[in-house]
């Protein structure tokens, strides 16, 4: 089985986000970057599928040179080789075009990624890639198995789950609990250093959207504490003051 796994390089989930004073870009000072958590689930599942069925896992990232430690981590977790498209991933269409170009005619059975990146939260790259390649896309996929050449999936829907069957090749946007995150072991880290990481230039420069300004939400006012011996006061305040009941 040939799997392409697309990862984003994003600030750690515990990060406090800040922007430069002009509101034009993220202030990266002091931020730790990680494999996007949803992508990390997809990667873990890809490695499990490879262990069960054989094949290869190729990791793909659209990013500048600073993402290479993140890509090496994916190699340490179990991907076989990596491709980096040397460009800033600022637009979903642009990123999808790069992925589609890499995947075109390469015979990938599964193209997996997270349901969304946790920086821009667009959630549309998987669907775009599928449409550009003429494949089916599924998201958010919380279970994925390959049985007798068929892909069995569960998709999270409002208030429950939907179980699906489809044929390969396909594209899936993944989320927990599709697999447990894998922590690279020492052997993985050592071998990752010598696994191939190919850098390519962007194949198409078209962008359809531009984030022109960033800002933080207005600060919250101070919390109003209510005496625990009189919790009924909360209901009264929600009715009279907050007017939400």
């Amino acid at each position: 089985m040939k799997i392409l796994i697309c990862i984003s390089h994003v600030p750690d989930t515990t990060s406090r986000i800040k922007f430069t004073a002009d509101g034009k870009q993220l202030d990266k000072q002091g931020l730790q970057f990680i494999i996007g958590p949803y992508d990390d689930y997809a990667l873990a599942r890809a490695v499990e599928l490879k262990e069960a069925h054989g094949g290869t896992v190729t990791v793909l990232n659209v990013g500048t040179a600073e993402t290479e430690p993140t890509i090496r981590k994916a190699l340490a977790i179990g991907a076989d080789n990596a491709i980096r498209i040397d460009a800033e991933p600022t637009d979903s269409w642009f990123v999808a075009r790069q992925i589609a170009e890499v995947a075109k005619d390469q015979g990938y059975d599964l193209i997996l990624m997270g349901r969304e990146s946790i920086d821009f939260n667009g959630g549309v790259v998987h669907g775009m890639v599928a449409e550009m390649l003429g494949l089916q896309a599924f998201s958010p996929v919380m279970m994925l198995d390959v049985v007798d050449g068929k892909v069995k999936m569960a998709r999270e829907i409002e208030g429950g789950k939907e179980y699906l069957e489809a044929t390969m090749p396909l594209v899936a946007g993944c989320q927990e609990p599709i697999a447990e995150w894998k922590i690279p072991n020492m052997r993985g880290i050592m071998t990752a250093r010598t696994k191939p990481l190919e850098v390519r230039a962007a194949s198409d420069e078209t962008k359809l959207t531009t984030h022109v300004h960033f800002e933080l939400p207005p600060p919250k006012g101070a919390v109003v504490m209510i005496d625990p011996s009189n919790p009924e006061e909360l209901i009264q305040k929600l009715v009279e003051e907050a007017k939400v009941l």
Partner: protein
Amino acid sequence: MSVLVFVEVADGQIKKSSLEAISYGAAIAEKANTQVIALVPGTISGYDLSGLGAYGADKVLHAEDEKLNTQGIRAFGTAIIQAMKSADAKFLIMAKSSLSDIIGARVSVEMQAAIATNVSGLPEINGTFSVPRSIYTGKAFGRVELSTECKILGIRKNAVSLRNDDKKAIVEKFAISFADNDFAASITNVEKADGDILLTEAEIVVSGGRGLKGPENWQMLEDLAKALGAGMGCSKPVSDLEWRPHHEHVGQTGVKVSPNLYIAVGISGAIQHLAGVSSSKVIVAINKDEDAPFFKAADYGICGDAFEIIPRLTKAVKALKN
């Protein structure tokens, strides 16, 4: 030209979030001096679709085909693309759901249309077209410009208030010609809790954390939620421990909610959880630990024993409703 709104239907009922999408579409149509067309897929039970006029729709295209009663991702995309072409739609508006992003992505490629998801407010139109959207999982906002003539917007809950226009929409049947592969994926089973208020649709959410000590203690939260007409949520540890199903997990890697009122019980308030709830209008934290970070993110707090406080709140809400 026109503004097309994709309306989602669950169990024969139109989702409230889709009514908000119609009202959002109406705000754009007013500025662009054009009409709002709502595309409704599948069977509708006991509702006169002309009533969508009150929320801002001028016309309803009802794609009655029973095949659209299930969540066929491709089939919905096909229906939207055909409706957009037939109505010369330059905007597609959808409410955020488990389907909206992936359908929007397909339509974006087919129509060569820029897409913005998680849109949190109305657009600014002055030479360029831009919308505010929630980014970094609720930790920040970005303003994004869409540069194509045709545009797709996925709006999140509470991005706009519901209109109450004094008009009826014209309802027309709309036939879709499906492609062979629109139903290539087969839905083998659907597991869904019956009668629950959906978390993403709820105006009020009651959420529980590890402070409740075990799944057997959820009954009192359910009682409170029922009294309030609220949806149920939980923290990531609670879903990881399988005390509650995964679709109730609220936070960075779970469901993001923006209700009018979010009540967190026994949840400490880790930054990953707060990311998923920060755009709620009013937040209440109930925790016995006075240093719980949730109190810094909340509008109202009670530091005390949830097992004593929650039943009293339920009683007070019932008294209020009576």
